[in-house]
């Protein structure tokens, strides 16, 4: 089976999430091959998990003041600050049967590509269930997965550099969640462990996700792009974002 690598794009948050969903729909109806994409966000965005309360997790006023989008994902998990320069996001979208029914195991398998990419860069990382990759106990990558219509969609971020003051001015990590940790001590980034430039990180990611696969690089089909534009309207919808 030949996989598709989408060209790297930098998009706004609603469109990034809409593209993931449009591809998942296309994969589900057999109109697109299993797909991997790497992308960044512009403007900066905060995404929240589909079960989270936007107002509880995000300083909405700070986001408005700094021009940061707020987008509710279709996947569970936590709030993420997507800094255009400070991270790379990946999505892997494939027929569910390729990964089996064991969801925790499939998290481990897909996150293994992040661990492999970090290894290429000389950074030893490990999987921390359910959905994190850590370096010496600090989170460097988080992922979230949904399975709908027979399709597995897992997306996640790899932190390249960490602007903690900005991040924690936008997010409101629960006091309960951080009860036993210093908020600035739970995260790390590639820049803390390696001098690798962004392009080297991307190359390592491409290698780790694709080296064992037959693949071709090609863009979204016109149908997928049109559908993504339609779906973006939902991700832009204030009611969707603040529904919980």
């Amino acid at each position: 089976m030949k996989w598709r690598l989408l060209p790297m794009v930098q998009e706004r948050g609603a469109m990034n999430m809409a593209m993931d969903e449009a591809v998942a729909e296309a994969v589900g109806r057999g109109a697109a091959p299993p797909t991997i994409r790497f992308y960044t966000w512009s403007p900066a965005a905060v995404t929240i998990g589909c079960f989270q309360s936007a107002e509880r997790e995000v300083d909405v006023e700070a986001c408005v003041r700094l021009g940061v989008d707020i987008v509710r994902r279709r996947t569970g998990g936590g709030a993420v600050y997507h800094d255009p320069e400070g991270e790379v996001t990946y999505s892997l979208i494939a027929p569910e049967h390729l990964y089996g029914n064991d969801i925790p195991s499939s998290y481990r398998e897909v996150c293994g590509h992040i661990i492999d990419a970090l290894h290429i860069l000389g950074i030893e990382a490990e999987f921390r269930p359910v959905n994190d990759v850590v370096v010496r106990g600090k989170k460097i990558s988080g992922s979230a997965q949904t399975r709908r219509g027979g399709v597995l969609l897992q997306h996640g971020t790899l932190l390249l550099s960490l602007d903690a003051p900005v991040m924690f001015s936008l997010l409101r990590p629960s006091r309960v969640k951080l009860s036993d940790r210093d908020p600035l001590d739970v995260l790390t980034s590639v820049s803390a462990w390696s001098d690798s430039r962004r392009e080297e990180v991307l190359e390592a990611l491409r290698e780790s996700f694709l080296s064992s696969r037959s693949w071709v690089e090609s863009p979204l089909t016109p149908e997928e792009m049109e559908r993504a534009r339609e779906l973006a309207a939902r991700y832009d919808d204030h009611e969707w974002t603040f529904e919980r």
Partner: protein
Amino acid sequence: MGPGVREAERKVPGGKLVQMSIGDDGAVRLTGDFFLHPEEALAGLESFLSSLNGKDHAATAAAIETYAERSGMMMIGVRPVDLAELLAEVRK
């Protein structure tokens, strides 16, 4: 949080966070960074939790587990026992 809403929060083993609230109308609402597959199962789970009095932790956890199995849902990062304990707290 509106008037009359009671809520409780719990960090479960593995680090996921679950918040439960219950309003004057008795409707239970769950938020947090947990995972639930399929995601659409949340509304049914909230309705089921709304129907439980939550007094007996063990019985409540067992009922939630049975409900999850029958519904074909998978909870990741939150366990029936966590929901049972949260329910007891918000129903105090």
